[in-house]
């Protein structure tokens, strides 16, 4: 997989200027009495990217940058405030229209917390078979057979379908989540921090499993994580998010060897690495601003060492820079390499 991945030919997913705002205003009466305006939290504010077939696209960013909102937008759990998302050429809104179930089947999701995402009162067999009930005309014995097959596929025992989630460890539960997501043979798996709740040795097991499944079933992944090392391990292409916007999209190798956006550079320098002893580190100052009141212009400018007057007033647009797509005035003007 090389550089042409930054522009896939016929993408499976195309996200065009998608935004999702949340109304967090005080209640109506209070607003009227106190003469307060409406307040929108712009969780995701105009992002554009493609995901090619069979590719792993990763979104990284710190908490509150909107990456989980993107995941939920992609599987239709949140509607769009603006823009559109095309899945295999079809707009995602079709999902909620008659006959939209066929589209829904093709997108499945794996959640972060394997303790909260499995119903504790259901046996594993029923948990995994639930999507089969919704999406297929399978009979009960067929479903049992399919569940056994799925359990084997994720490295569990077919006999495990008679047990309850609490009888499994965190890693095994995440395997159950994966089996449930795979039940209806989706094209795209949206994985929202699938290994963040797991210990490293178990994380390795789950990441290896996800790679094996991708190779065997030709799956496409949207992989959301705050852990850059994990992203480096799994992703083909990476998008870096900051305060509801994507600041840089590039192939994995380009991003990690030649980060362009100052925020990407900062993130890469900030992570403690196993081999990083004595690494010279540019001091990173400041914290993520309140998303309710983002800074004007480029939202990263208060923390950016390269910010100038233009950055403080004018929001940058994405531009092609080398192998990456970067949203930064300093890169555009050639002030930083």
């Amino acid at each position, binding site marked *: 997989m090389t550089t042409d991945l930054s522009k896939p030919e016929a993408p499976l997913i195309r996200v065009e200027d998608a935004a999702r705002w949340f109304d967090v205003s005080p209640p109506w009466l209070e607003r009227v009495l106190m003469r307060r305006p409406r307040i929108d939290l712009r969780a995701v504010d105009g992002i554009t990217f493609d995901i090619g077939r069979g590719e792993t696209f990763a979104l990284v960013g710190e908490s509150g940058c909107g990456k989980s909102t993107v995941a939920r937008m992609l599987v239709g759990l949140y509607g769009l405030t603006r823009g559109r998302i095309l899945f295999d050429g079809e707009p995602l809104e079709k999902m909620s229209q008659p006959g939209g179930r066929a589209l829904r089947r093709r997108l499945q999701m794996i959640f972060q917390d394997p303790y909260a995402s499995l119903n504790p009162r259901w046996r594993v067999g029923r948990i995994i078979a639930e999507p089969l009930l919704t999406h297929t005309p399978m009979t009960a014995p067929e479903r049992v057979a399919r569940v056994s097959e799925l359990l084997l596929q994720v490295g569990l025992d077919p006999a495990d379908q008679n047990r309850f989630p609490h009888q499994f460890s965190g890693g095994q539960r995440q395997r159950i989540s994966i089996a449930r997501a795979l039940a209806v043979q989706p094209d795209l798996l949206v994985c929202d921090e699938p290994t963040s709740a797991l*210990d*490293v*040795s178990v994380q390795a097991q789950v*990441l*290896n499993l996800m790679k094996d499944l991708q190779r065997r079933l030709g799956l496409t992944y949207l992989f959301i994580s705050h852990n*850059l090392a994990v992203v480096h391990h799994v992703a083909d292409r990476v998008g870096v998010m900051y305060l509801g916007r994507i600041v840089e999209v590039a192939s994995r190798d380009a991003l990690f060897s030649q980060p362009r956006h100052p925020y990407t550079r900062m993130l890469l320098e900030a992570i*403690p690495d196993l081999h990083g002893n004595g690494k010279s580190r540019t001091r990173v100052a400041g*914290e993520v601003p309140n998303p309710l009141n983002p800074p004007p212009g480029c939202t990263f400018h208060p923390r950016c060492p390269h910010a100038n007057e233009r950055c403080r007033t004018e929001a940058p647009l994405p531009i092609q820079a080398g192998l990456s797509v970067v949203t930064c005035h300093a890169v555009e003007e050639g002030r930083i390499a």
Partner: protein
Amino acid sequence: MPMEPLLEVRNLSVAFPTRRGTLKALNEVSFSIAPGEILGVVGESGAGKSLTGASIIGLLEPPGRISGGEIYLSGRRIDNLSDEEMRRVRGREIGAVFQDPLTSLNPLYTVGHQLAETIVTHLDMSWAQARTRAIELLASTGIPAAKERIDHYPHQFSGGMRQRVVIALALAAEPKLVVADEPTTALDVSIQAQIIELLKKLCREHGASVMLITHDMGVIAETADRVAVMYAGRVVEIGPVSEVIHHPNHPYSSGLMGSIPTLDAHVERLVQIDGSMPRLTAIPTGCAFNPRCVSRMPRCTRERPELMPAGATRAACWLHDNAELA
């Protein structure tokens, strides 16, 4: 170790009585920390890292109790002190930084009050002096406008800033040892690095030793002098940090290091340790790691290995038993 250790833990065991018998959560853990040294303690959840820290600062949650072993701080035994005596040691001689800065601070008092209270309790200072010192401390942790911020309440600080306050609080009485239990886990990556740098810098300035408990090997690699790897309530390997990371001698440490994705090399598959850590109710006999170990020998299922010299580190593994080789 040339100097007398600041902290010495000898054969520490912690037990939890339950209806189905007593669970041994820590099983004869021994290690020491030299003055000014940063010892990293790593392991996966349930390995007993936090329990070790809690035992040292005397904050073991009942019904857990120290069932064996001794803890010495500067040569003085501290594990059998009364609550009242321990309270004087805690804060004065041992500072603590926990994972969640919000629960470590009292939401009803200003941070200045909390800092000054600690200072007045442990040091011979008036409230006015303590306040001046609190402002200095706060400023030294890199909180801008410390003079104004000192009268703010914890909720008015962001997560990273709160953790700075907690670090200031831990160092307020100039302790000789700081026990930091996952100090950066609740923070974002860009903040994590700042906090780690700060902890390192301040402890160096104050000459305090640190016991840094974390599951993040990256943090350990950048911070610690030595590292102890824990598994199922035991220390399985201890040694200089670069040795343990690059030339681990215990099969669990090697598996753990291999399973961590890194930014340099690209590997198609991560090293995988099959299975998971045993529950406390079912710790295997012999070496607790033997069911998951790739180099298991018949002896491993029968006899429990103690820490023994292995390369440049010490590992609890029969592979390094010279008597066996001879």
